[in-house]
């Protein structure tokens, strides 16, 4: 394994004393020039990078009320200092949300405020130099943009917005992160993050149809590029091959089948994830969003449904209409877009699905609220539906369900530790340590209620937990998809 120690799980959450600089070494691989140029950024650090970065900062602040208000408003009250999972897991004070913001704010103050121009020492303003850039690269890649800090800030300051801006500035001067930028390039040319071309996708879906038929004796289709289908399903590409994701995809297929809905996947827009958000690039985010619009138009669908993916749902729910709308060519009787959990929930409400909960009796379940679903989007037509609906779907599918402690679920949920474009092996130490608060909360329900499995509705969460659970002495298959539970419990065939 790696050259770091996995934190020990404590019976109750503890706020560690600060240890300055202990995570300063954590840096993801830098993107190669060809990756950078492919998505519209300079290949490597440009000569006059300081001036370009400072100008870019001004441009971003001029164009974002959030950034402008957040940079002005922080009073350093300390409310957020113990809220970030990366601080709780690493003790590095630069992982306290306010300190992370200050890496950015100190530069902003130096160049864009009266106090910082004339009294830099007094207000903690700093020149933008190579050391600051290195610090940015390290610590703005230790933020998973989960927004937990923004829940607790008296002014709603969202460190995610500042992380995104910092990454955008770094990309603009030629310093990009390999993992995110490589993926964005693939999604923009091939159509998905994994780089699966149409034939591979067709092959995979066919294989899944055979598996389902073998398992259940029922023919359930997973159509690809089917013109005239009613529903376009856009799902994270991890759903096409990895465990437990693929079991979720089988679940969606069974729900559509049983409800008699006609649907299709598009090979052109075969990716729900939108890593453009992680790097704060409006332009890259828009290019990816446009592919979904184009696919919907080309296939002539009436509805768009998203599969289980956290940040994808944020981009879909909150941004898609803005980035690629208006979607007035779709059926106005359905929300645009819809989450697969909403579809299943509606069908369950109408008693349109028969569920055998005992099919999941080999598991005692809990639910991990994904940050981008819980704090950055909604499901259903009521406030907080994103917390209620997935649980309702799970509880309709199993007999044994227990929630984790209140400080670790709902709007207070802890990130899995791998969100925000950090789900890469070069950041594994950060990912293991950052998952500590979630692991402690999980441990509690394991001990108290004999929980055996944790369900999630996000591809990043699922991949992260598969990797991280063994570090904490648990099994990688203890993380399951919500629609995997649906898949197990749903009764196929019968009347319709």
């Amino acid at each position: 394994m790696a050259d770091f120690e996995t934190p020990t799980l404590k019976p109750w959450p503890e706020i560690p004393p600060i240890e300055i600089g202990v995570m300063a070494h954590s840096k993801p691989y830098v993107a190669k020039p060809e990756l950078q140029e492919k998505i519209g950024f300079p290949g490597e650090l440009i000569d006059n990078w300081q001036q370009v970065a400072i100008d870019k900062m001004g441009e971003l602040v001029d164009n974002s009320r959030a950034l402008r208000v957040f940079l002005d408003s922080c009073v350093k009250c300390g409310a957020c200092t113990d809220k970030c999972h990366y601080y709780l897991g690493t003790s590095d004070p630069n992982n306290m949300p306010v300190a992370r913001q200050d890496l950015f704010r100190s530069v902003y103050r130096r160049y864009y405020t009266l106090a910082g121009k004339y009294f830099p020492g007094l207000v903690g303003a700093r020149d933008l130099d190579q050391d600051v850039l290195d610090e940015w690269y390290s610590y703005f890649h230790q933020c998973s943009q989960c927004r937990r800090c923004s829940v607790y800030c008296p002014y709603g300051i969202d460190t995610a917005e500042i992380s995104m801006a910092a990454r955008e500035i770094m990309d603009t001067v030629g310093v990009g992160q390999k993992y995110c930028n490589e993926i964005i390039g693939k999604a923009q040319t091939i159509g998905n993050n994994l780089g699966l071309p149409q034939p591979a996708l067709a092959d995979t879906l066919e294989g899944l149809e055979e598996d389902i038929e073998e398992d259940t004796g029922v023919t359930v289709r997973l159509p690809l590029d089917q013109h005239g289908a009613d529903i376009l399903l856009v799902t994270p590409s991890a759903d096409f091959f990895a465990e437990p994701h693929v079991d979720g995809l089988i679940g969606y297929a069974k729900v559509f089948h049983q409800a008699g809905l006609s649907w299709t996947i598009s090979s052109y827009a075969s990716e729900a994830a939108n890593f453009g958000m992680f790097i704060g690039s409006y332009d890259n985010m828009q290019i990816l969003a446009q592919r979904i619009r184009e696919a919907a138009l080309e296939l002539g669908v009436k509805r768009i449904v998203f599969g289980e993916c956290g940040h994808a749902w944020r981009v879909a729910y909150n941004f898609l209409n803005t980035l690629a709308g208006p979607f007035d060519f779709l059926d106005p009787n359905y929300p645009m877009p819809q989450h697969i959990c909403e579809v299943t929930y509606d069908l369950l409400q109408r008693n349109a699905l028969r569920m055998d909960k005992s099919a999941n009796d080999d598991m005692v379940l809990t639910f991990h609220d994904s940050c981008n679903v819980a704090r950055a989007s909604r499901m259903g037509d009521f406030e907080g539906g994103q917390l209620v609906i997935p649980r309702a779907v799970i509880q309709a599918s199993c007999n044994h369900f227990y929630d984790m402690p209140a400080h670790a679920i709902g709007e207070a949920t802890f990130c899995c530790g791998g969100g925000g474009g950090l789900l890469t092996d070069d950041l594994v130490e950060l990912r293991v340590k950052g998952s500590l608060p979630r692991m402690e909360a999980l441990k509690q329900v394991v001990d108290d209620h004999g929980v055996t499995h944790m369900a999630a509705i996000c591809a990043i969460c699922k991949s992260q937990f598969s990797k991280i659970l063994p570090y904490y002495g648990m099994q990688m298959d203890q993380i399951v998809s919500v629609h995997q539970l649906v898949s197990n419990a749903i009764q196929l065939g019968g009347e319709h």
Partner: protein
Amino acid sequence: MSMLTITFTLLFYVATAVFIIGLALRIRLYAKTPTPLRIPTTPAPITAAGVWRRMFFEVTLFNSLFKSNRWIWIFGWIFHAALLLVLLRHLRYFTDPVWSWVTLLQPLGAYAAFAMIAGLAGLWARRLLVDRVRYISSPSDHLMLALLIAIGLSGLGMKYVAPTDIVAVKAFFLGLMYFDWQPFPPDTILILHLLLVVALMLIFPFSKLLHAPGVFFSPTRNQIDNPREKRHLPTRPAAVKQAS
């Protein structure tokens, strides 16, 4: 007119102008800066009335801070509530006759000064004693607390230790308001108190005190959660330019 009177007359006009114009320009800038995307922190209200409710409780009861940290909430809320009472109590220097509700507030306002200082002291203690908060504090963060406490203490000093001629003070401020300038009472604590207040007014539009107008413009708090029902138009000039 004495030098002292001329100095304070000018100081208060300048400070008031900087405070009002500086703040107005900043608020205008907040209002004019575009919001490219919908980013409310959810669960968020799905109606405008709901957002009004959310903002009301955020601003009056510091809801988010209450969820976050009980100590900061207690000290912070006591300080702000007490400051409000103290400010209202000071209205008696600016209206003649004194409004009746301001008269009623007078005894309460006197206690509020102690509460205000206690709240500030609590916040400062956290800044000095909690390692995390100490780490994020700049000199200006300490100075701001020192300034506010010094204003409070000098005010209390005039009430309880060395009473100043408040009739003359009132005449001076009414004179400022009606451009009928009156002599400034030469009293050391009063000079100190008002110099600090002038400093606070001058600093306000250029410092973290901008959190006061800022909270009303925070998109994570004041946006309605309805992006599917109502398309949020891209108001980002760069994006609009590209699209056209």
